[in-house]
C-alpha cells in the first residue's frame, strides 16, 4: 500500500506547486505593468504619461478614443503647443492648444490661454469662474506623440463596466485553468 500513498502525495504537492506558480506569474504580470507605468512617469516627468482623448474639441487632429503621449519638461510653454491642463473644480483634464503666452520679465511666470482647434471661442468659459489665464501649475504635460483608436478600449470599459468585469473574469479563468 506504500506506493499508492506515495503517488497520492506526489500528486498533491504537484498541484500545490502548480497553483503557487500561477499565483507568482500573475503577480509578475501585475508588477511588471506597474513598473512600466511608473517608469514612464519617471521618464516623461508627467503624472499621467498617457491620456485618452474624450471629446471632439480638437478635431480633426484628435478624435475621441485617440491616445496622446505626454511629456513634461522644464522648457517654457509656448504658443502652438498642445497641453493637458487641470482646472480647479473639474475632475477631467482637458487637452487643448495654447494660443496666447505672456511671460513675466522678472519672475518668469507665465499666463497661458488655450483653445480647442474645433471650438469657436477660447477656453475662458471652461476655466474656473473668474479665471482668465492658466498658470504653470495647471499644466500636466504637453502632447508629443499620437496613436489613433487605441483609447477606445478604456472608453468602452469605463462606460460599460460589465464588459470590464467580463474581461477580467475571463482572463482570470484563463490564468487559473491554463496548464503550462
Amino acid at each position, binding site marked *: 500500500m506504500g506506493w499508492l500513498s506515495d503517488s497520492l502525495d506526489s500528486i498533491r504537492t504537484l498541484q500545490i506547486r502548480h497553483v503557487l506558480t500561477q499565483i507568482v506569474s500573475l503577480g509578475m504580470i501585475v508588477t511588471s505593468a506597474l513598473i512600466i507605468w511608473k517608469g514612464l512617469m519617471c521618464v516623461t516627468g508627467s503624472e499621467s504619461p498617457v491620456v485618452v482623448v474624450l471629446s471632439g474639441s480638437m478635431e480633426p487632429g484628435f478624435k475621441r478614443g485617440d491616445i496622446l503621449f505626454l511629456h513634461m519638461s522644464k522648457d517654457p510653454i509656448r*504658443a502652438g503647443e498642445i497641453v493637458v491642463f487641470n482646472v480647479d473644480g473639474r475632475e477631467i483634464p482637458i487637452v487643448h492648444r495654447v494660443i496666447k503666452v505672456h511671460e513675466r*520679465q522678472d519672475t518668469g511666470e507665465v499666463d497661458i490661454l488655450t483653445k480647442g*482647434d474645433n471650438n469657436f471661442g477660447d477656453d475662458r468659459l471652461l476655466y474656473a469662474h473668474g479665471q482668465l489665464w492658466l498658470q504653470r501649475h495647471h499644466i500636466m504635460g504637453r502632447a508629443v506623440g*499620437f496613436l489613433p483608436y487605441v483609447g477606445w478600449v478604456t472608453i468602452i470599459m469605463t462606460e460599460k463596466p460589465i464588459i470590464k468585469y467580463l474581461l477580467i473574469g475571463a482572463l482570470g479563468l484563463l490564468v487559473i485553468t491554463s496548464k503550462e
Partner: protein
Amino acid sequence: MHSFGYRLNTVLTFALLLLAVLCGAASFLDAFNSPLSASSSYVQANAQVVKVNRFRRQLNGADEVSLTFNVSLDMKRLFTWNTKQVFVFLAAEYETPKNALNQISLWDHIILDKDQAMFQTKVTTKYPLIDQGSNLRGRKVDLILHWHVMPKTGRMIRDKLRLSDFHLPEAYT
C-alpha cells in the same frame, strides 16, 4: 498544445506586434523629411500687415488691435504619407517692460491635404491682439509663422519661421 486558443493567441499577438512596428516605422520615417538646413528653404511663406482696422484701449486699460494682412504660404513639402494635417498659425510676438515675451496667435488655419498647402489670402485677425496693459503704441511686433505637423500616428513636429515685423501706430484710432 496546438489548441484553438493558443493559435488565436499567437495570431493576435503577432498582429499587434506587427501593427506596433509599422506605426513606429511610419513615425520614424518622418524624420527623413525633416529639413537638414534652415527651415526657411523648407516652407515658403510671407505675411504683411496691410491695414490697422482698429486700435483702442479697452475699459480695463488693455490695448486691443485688429489687423488685416496678406498671407501667402507654401507648405507642400511638409506633407508625407504619415501626415494627417498641418496646423498653421500666425503669431504676433513682442517684448514689453513687464513681459519678456508676449505670444499672441492672430490667425490659424488647418491644412488637411497637400493640394491645399499652397495659397495666398487676405485675412483679418481671428483673435484680437490684446496686450496685458497699454504698451502697444509704437511697439515693434514680429510676425512669426508657426506650424504643427500632426501625424496619422507617432511623433508630432513643430517648427516656426520669422516672417516680418511692423510698428504699431503711435495713436489710437
